[in-house]
């Protein structure tokens, strides 16, 4: 009788612990506040685009054509994204900005530098060389395939 009671108490205690653990997990788990995330994505993404616009206007004022200026702006933003990733600042921007830091071309640069830096110890071929393209690879593969298909369709329709 005593033993059974002891079992019940044990079970009760285990359940209490489980409940406590569940509450602890709930409290520690990051909350996905969609509205706040969207506002931050808007502000950070918008700000990065404004920086791009300032560079674009500057390069146009230096006498570059619109297409060249856009290409040089893209290169400049890639440089900034790669540099900020290297010194560990882009991670912080990413924590605040979410998609606002992923979608601009600086985020593309971040997706190139971060894994390559991380896997450097695996060597310069399969570490840096391969991991540069962890995300950039799929982006280029699907981007190039789609644009080639569009070109072919355009050729056939001409």
């Amino acid at each position: 009788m005593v033993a059974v009671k002891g079992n019940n108490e044990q079970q009760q205690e285990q359940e209490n612990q489980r409940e406590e653990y569940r509450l602890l997990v709930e409290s520690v788990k990051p909350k996905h506040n969609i509205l706040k995330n969207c506002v931050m994505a808007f502000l950070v993404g918008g700000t990065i685009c404004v920086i791009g616009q300032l560079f674009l206007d500057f390069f146009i004022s230096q006498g570059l054509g619109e297409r060249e200026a856009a290409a040089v702006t893209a290169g400049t933003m890639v440089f900034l994204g790669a540099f900020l990733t290297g010194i560990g600042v882009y991670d912080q921007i990413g924590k605040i900005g979410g998609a606002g830091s992923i979608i601009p071309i600086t985020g593309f640069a971040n997706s190139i530098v971060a894994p390559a830096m991380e896997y450097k110890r695996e060597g310069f071929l399969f570490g840096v060389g391969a991991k540069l393209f962890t995300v950039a690879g799929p982006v280029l593969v699907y981007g190039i395939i789609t644009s080639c298909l569009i070109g072919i369709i355009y050729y056939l329709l001409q």
Partner: protein
Amino acid sequence: MLKILLAFVVGGLICVIGQLLMDLTRPSITPAHILVGYVTGGVLLSSVGLYQPLVDLAGAGATIPLSGFGHSLAQGAIKAVEQKGLLGAFSGGIESTAVGVAAAVIFGYAFAVLFNPRS
């Protein structure tokens, strides 16, 4: 000044769409899906003529998000087809994005070798 404001608003909104896609489908759509989706989406929107008006309106607000990279790929391919025929379909996209891609490889490589991860 209006141009800057438009770049901010349009660029910001393009990012909000991505944030919503990630938050509402978490965890099935990852940042990698977003980047690939934006480039592919940019190519498709551009090819039916819907992305150029956005670029005209918002400038860098439309070209800095990765969908602008897709736009550049598509316009490169289409323009090259007009000039060189079928060969252009294969060369145009890569040619028009060459600066961005080369910059990404060169600077990406340099900073990955130069710096070490923080944590």
